[in-house]
Structure formats: structure tokens, C-alpha cells
């Protein structure tokens, strides 16, 4: 299945600077993909290439089976919602929405009618005679969406379309748009640097780093099984420890050992293979100091740590736990000496639910046992 939109090996450079390097992805019919990346990762360039506002240096772009990269922007039939909406300031809301039909030679009565229907859909009928400058940011965005939908585009592109809105409007609008897209069954590509937005809007998320797609998958896949450190730390918070693969277990640079099942990939690992151990703040389980020696079934232990910081944020509690390397120097001291890199304690980000925090109250200075519910091993 090639999908509604298919981007194949697209490259782009500005002068000598490569911006996109062989980027490929596709969006299924009626689905949405979020391109998530820092500014400068090339995500806006991808959007402009698909829209036809830039020409690729290599690769091909297909929309519903038709190759579109040689076409002019105006022949591609794509709806774009720009970052600042780009509503025409001299036209009323109705005129803005009707513009796409009007330039296609549709009679005034008809495009006005179509515009009013779309306005009703986005709930702005009362604003029809207003000018864009008289609307709030959220209203402007609805008009921009209605305007892009008016000429029945083959797909929608959203360029950081939520970044200018205040947080409450943003959350509400995201839900609305998600619902709208599902009803209309129109494929959509979102560009954003906001991971929360990516999780909520994307059926699929593609993580872009320096012009390359690092990973594509459902938000859940990417969050639970990041394939690179960049992906792990970009989508959500993550702890990353370095270590080596020694005799079927991971020996951490901090001098601790961790029994982890390396799974299928581990067969290919050589002795002392450098590895990264990645785990989420909520994967860390803290235990009381008096329950020494107790290890829960199926849980990995990092040994002892010290609570350094505690911050309460409503539904959850955020902690920083320090691991001191020297405490756990053990029999494998040769390897440990080689691997120990830093004198300062390793700082782990830990989150606990309100109820976990109630069960075991912790304050800075407390000694805790540190267990892991899940980890991801990445080859360095």
C-alpha cells in the first residue's frame, strides 16, 4: 500500500547546506502523520516541498498515485494551513474562505454559499463579515482550515499551526481538528516541535533529526520502543545510561550491573559492545531503604540511590535520584574501572503517580532502592 501521500527519497539542499537527506514516508488514506523535529531539522522544508513552494533536488512525491513534484503549487490541489494562517487581510472571512473557489471560476452565489457552509462547520457563522484582524488566534485558525477545505483538497498540510495559540485554545482546537479529519477522511500532515501535539494529532509520528527521518511509528511505538537516543529524549523524557554488553548482562559506566534480556539483537552483539540503556521516568520504581534486599519479580535493580530533588506537579511527582557509582563496585572491578567515566553521581529523572507518592513519602536526602520496570537497549 503506497498510501495517499508518498514521499520517496526526497533530498534538498540550500546552497551547500543539505537540509533534507533521502527522506521517505507515506500517509495512508484518511490518516494523519506528524513530523516532529527541532527548528532547523528540515520539517518546514518538507511541507514546502509537498505544497510545491520549493523544488526538491532529488526524490519523488506522489499524491494519490500521481507524481506531483514536477507540478506547480497551484496544480497540486493541496490545502495548507500556515503558521500564522496567512488569511488575506483585505478580505472578509467569507471572501477568504471562498477565494479558492472564486479563482476557479465558481459563481459568487455558489462560493458564498460554500463558504457559509464551511463557516457553520467550524462554528464561526457570526463572524462571516469580519476581517481577519478582528478575529482571535483560534478563530483565525478555524477560518484558515475552512479556507483550505473549501476547494476539496486531496490532503491538508499544517505548518506549526498551533504554536501561536494560548495553551487552552490549543488543546481544544487539536481535539476538534482530530475529530474533523476523522469525519472528512482527509489525509493530513502536521509539522510541529511540540511532542504533546504530535502524540495527540498523529496516527503516525515521524521524528526528524538534521534532515533525516530517525523513526516512524505510532506514538505508542515510538514512546515505548525508541530506536535512537535522539528519539528517546525528544519524544518524552528519558534517562540514558551508557554501558557495555558483558557476558549476557549490561555493565553500566557508573559501575553497576544490570541483568537485561537483550533479546534477538543481542546474538549479534560482540563482547563489550557499547550500549545505551534507555528508560522513562515512570519506568523507575523507588523502594524504601528499610526493605533492603527485597527485589520484585521481573524488575531490574540499579541498587541504591539518593533522592536529590522532589517536585510536586499535581497529578504526579517528579524526583531526581542520584546514583553513586563507587557504592556498587563489585567483583568485576576490572571492567568497572574501565567504564567509570564520571565522579559526580548520575542523576535519574523519576516520576511517580500521586498514589505512589502517598504510599512512600520521600524527601531530599532519603536513601532508596532503584528498580526499573522496563528498559530499552540501544546499540551505540
Amino acid at each position, binding site marked *: 500500500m503506497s498510501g495517499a501521500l508518498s514521499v520517496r527519497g526526497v533530498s534538498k539542499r540550500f546552497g551547500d547546506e543539505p537540509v533534507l537527506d533521502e527522506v521517505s514516508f507515506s500517509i495512508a488514506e484518511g490518516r494523519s502523520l506528524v513530523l516532529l523535529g527541532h527548528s532547523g531539522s528540515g520539517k518546514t522544508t518538507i511541507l514546502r516541498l509537498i505544497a510545491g513552494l520549493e523544488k526538491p533536488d532529488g526524490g519523488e512525491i506522489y499524491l494519490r498515485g500521481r507524481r506531483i513534484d514536477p507540478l506547480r503549487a*497551484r496544480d*497540486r490541489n493541496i490545502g*495548507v494551513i500556515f503558521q500564522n494562517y496567512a488569511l488575506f*487581510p483585505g478580505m472578509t472571512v467569507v471572501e477568504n474562505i471562498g477565494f479558492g473557489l472564486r*479563482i476557479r471560476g465558481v459563481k459568487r452565489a455558489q462560493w458564498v454559499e460554500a463558504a457559509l457552509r464551511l463557516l457553520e462547520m467550524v462554528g464561526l457563522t457570526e463572524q462571516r463579515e469580519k476581517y481577519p484582524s478582528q478575529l482571535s488566534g483560534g478563530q483565525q485558525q478555524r477560518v484558515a482550515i475552512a479556507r483550505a477545505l473549501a476547494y476539496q483538497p486531496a490532503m491538508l498540510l499544517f505548518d506549526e499551526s498551533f504554536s501561536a495559540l494560548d495553551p487552552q485554545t490549543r488543546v481544544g482546537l487539536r481535539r476538534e481538528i482530530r475529530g474533523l479529519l476523522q469525519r472528512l477522511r482527509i489525509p493530513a500532515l502536521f509539522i510541529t516541535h511540540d511532542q504533546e501535539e504530535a502524540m495527540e494529532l498523529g496516527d503516525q509520528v515521524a521524528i526528524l533529526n538534521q534532515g533525516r527521518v530517525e523513526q516512524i511509528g505510532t506514538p505508542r511505538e515510538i514512546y515505548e520502543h525508541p530506536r535512537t537516543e535522539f528519539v528517546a529524549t525528544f519524544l518524552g523524557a528519558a534517562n540514558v545510561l551508557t554501558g557495555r554488553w558483558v557476558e549476557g548482562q549490561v555493565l553500566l559506566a557508573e559501575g553497576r550491573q544490570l541483568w537485561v534480556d537483550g533479546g534477538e539483537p543481542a546474538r549479534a552483539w560482540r563482547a563489550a559492545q557499547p550500549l545505551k540503556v534507555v528508560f522513562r521516568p515512570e519506568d523507575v520504581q523507588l523502594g524504601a531503604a528499610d526493605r533492603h534486599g527485597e527485589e520484585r519479580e521481573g524488575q531490574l535493580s540499579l541498587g541504591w540511590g539518593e533522592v536529590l530533588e522532589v517536585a510536586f506537579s499535581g497529578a504526579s511527582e517528579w524526583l531526581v535520584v542520584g546514583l553513586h557509582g563507587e557504592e556498587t563496585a563489585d567483583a568485576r572491578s576490572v571492567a568497572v574501572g574501565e567504564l567509570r567515566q564520571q565522579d559526580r553521581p548520575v542523576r535519574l529523572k523519576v516520576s511517580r503517580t500521586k498514589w505512589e507518592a502517598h504510599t512512600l513519602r520521600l524527601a531530599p536526602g532519603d536513601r532508596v532502592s532503584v528498580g526499573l520496570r522496563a528498559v530499552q537497549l540501544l546499540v551505540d
Partner: protein
Amino acid sequence: MTWGNSGEQPGRPRPWARDGVPVSSSVDLARPVGISLILFAMVPLVILPLSSIFIYGLSKGPVHFWQALMAPAALFSLRLSLMTSAVATVCNVFFGVIAAYVMSKYRFRGSTALMITISLPTAIPTAVAGFALLLLWGRSGLLGQFLERTEYQIMFTTAAIILANIFVTFPLAFGVIKPALDNLDTNYEDAAETMGASRWQTFRYVVLPSLRGAILTGALLTFARSIGEFGSTIMVSGNLPMRTQTAPLYIFTKFNEGDIEGANAIAAVLAALSFVIFSVILLTRGRFDR
């Protein structure tokens, strides 16, 4: 509310606490002194000379003023000035929009040189401009010698006045429209293009409407400058009463003949006109910038 960041933090000074307090409690002298200085310079240099036109005009009574104004040569010179200025304005606004669009959208070899050439007429003395036109179109001029063999003539006709006006006011509209175009967010054009608009439709419906303010200002500036043009006009028009005598030339001629009242009547009209034009420019500024 569960998000802690909106709560009050009593220990930390609020950053906006300072804003309500004046910088200094003493009286700010810069304002009255500055305004007085401007008025002090304006009164003898601009306001009094202009007032004297109206004071003189009315000193002999409105009837005299009216008669001087209604003299056929006076009315003719006003009409000629308005007409030639209007034509020059239309030409230069049309040219200015196109030139501004090209110079703003495209970078090409020699674009800087072209930019300088377009702006050059601002710096050329108007008498030099008129002289240059004479050398080109005059009886033995570069092109004029060919015209000489036909029945057509350009120099010492209305066409010459228009040519001189165009030359002298060439960069004015361009100079106002180009910055407006440079500042226009290209997102509007991108948006129109993705919606299916052709280059022309984008220009017609998106670019041009957002230039309304700049076009009006540019047109009024061009018109105001044209209507007062003297140096180049006196060289190329021949200053023939009832034929090629514009309003400024009429003032000059009447004054030389000792007809102060005649000169003053037209001077008063021109002064009032420029007052109206610049009031329109200043009052409409901002109206179009939505």
C-alpha cells in the same frame, strides 16, 4: 487549578511591578522644550511665508482675489497643471507598481544598477532634467532631428510638460511602493498559490489590495510634486500663455510683469492644494494597514 505556575509567589518580585511607576518623579522638560523648538523654527521658515500668501490675497478684498483667479490665462494654467500632473501620476504609479514588483521579487544581474537608475531622477536638478529632454527631443536633438521632418513636435507642447513631469517624479511612487512590497509577508502569496491562484490572480487579489495605502500615498506625492514642477517645465514648455504655461510658470511670469495679485491668486490655490494633499496622506496612513 493544578498547574502551579499560575499561583502567586510572594517571595519573588513581580517583573511588571516596576512598569506602573514613572521613571523619574521630576517634570519631563524634553516634551515642551522640543515642541517649542520645532515651532520656533517653523514659524519664520514655513508658516509665516505661507500665511503671507493668504494675508496678501485677502488684503485687497475677496473680489480682487476672485477676479485675479478667474483671469482666463490663470484658469488655463491651473487646468494645464492639473491635467499634466494627473497624466504623469497615472504613468508613474503604473510604472512604480511594476518596477517595485520586479525589483522586490527578483534578484538578477545588474539589479543594483537598475535600482540606482530608477532612483536617479530624485537627485538630478530639475533644470538639468529639462535641459536633457531638450537635447534629446529638441530640433537638433538625438531623436528630435527625426521628428523635425514630420509634422509632429514634442518640445514646447503639452507632451513636453508631461514628459518633464514623468522624468522628475519618476522614483516617487516606486520609492513608496517598493518598501511596502518588501514588507509584505510572502506567506500571503504562498497561500494564494497553494489555493490554486495563478501568478496574475495572486497579484490582482492578494498583492495589489495590500498595496492600496502605498499606491495612494505614492500617487499623491507624485501629483503634488508634478503640480509644483518649475525648473524642467520652464526649459521644455516654452512658457506660452494659454498654451504651455503651467501654474508655477504663470506665478513666475505674473510676478515678473509686476502683477502681484495675479501671481498671488494662483500661489494661494497651489499652497492650499498641497495642504489638502498632505493632509490626505497623513490622515489615511494606517487606515490601510490592517
